[in-house]
């Protein structure tokens, strides 16, 4: 089955952990993930500036390793990202901000990418709230 996965909650939320474990389980069961889409506070999962204590779960780091190791299509909504301070090099320059913080496994793009993923997928699974 083809899944599109949307995440609306930040890396410190249980919803982010649930989404990651779901995504891992989907691949382990032989399913395909057509796209991961970070929206609303979910954009924080793509921030390179999250620092977690050594004995705590580093979800942003885990997401990045997961996306990279499976060569997944990881998209961050650009409008939601700008609103919350998640910028790539290009946007940091364009908006005259001192630094970019988007982890390079993720890509900033528009909401059209969410719709495109929903069109390709058999199931769109959303993770939000706590």
């Amino acid at each position, binding site marked *: 089955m083809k899944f599109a996965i*949307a995440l*609306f909650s930040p890396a410190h939320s249980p919803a982010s952990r649930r989404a990651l474990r779901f995504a891992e389980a989907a691949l382990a069961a032989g399913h395909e993930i057509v796209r991961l889409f970070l*929206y*609303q506070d979910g954009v924080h999962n793509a921030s390179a500036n999250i620092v977690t204590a050594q004995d705590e779960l580093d979800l942003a780091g885990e997401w990045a390793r997961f996306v990279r190791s499976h060569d997944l299509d990881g998209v961050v909504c650009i*409008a*939601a990202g700008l*609103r919350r301070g998640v910028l790539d090099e290009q946007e940091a320059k364009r908006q005259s901000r001192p630094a970019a913080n988007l982890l390079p496994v993720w890509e900033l793009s*528009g*909401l*059209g990418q*969410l*719709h495109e993923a*929903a*069109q390709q997928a058999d*199931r*769109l699974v*959303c993770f*939000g709230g706590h």
Partner: protein
Amino acid sequence: MARSMLIITRQSPWSGPTAREALDIALAGGAFELPLGMLFLDDGVFQLTQAQQAAQLQQKDLTANLQALPMFGIDSLYAAKRSLSERGLDATKLSLLVEVLDDDALRTLINSYDHVITL
């Protein structure tokens, strides 16, 4: 055939960017002429009240953007009857033409869509 999507918007317009961001999903999909519907549920029905004064909270009024939905080809617009009555809102005095649905009709509506996003 294109897959249909129902966007369920559950937050009031004054409780942060969620109402705006739910609407943005609808407007972005409308640009691709996708079969979309939008359901105003729970506090989301507050988005439909008339004569809002968002500027009092230094916010932008979403009403004009909501009214643009039909122009984007999104005219499957619904509001939950129970949500309206629980909040004392008159279904005949809303800023947008919506179909008001009772709980049974909501179940049928949600089941009729391929995808559902709730914000």
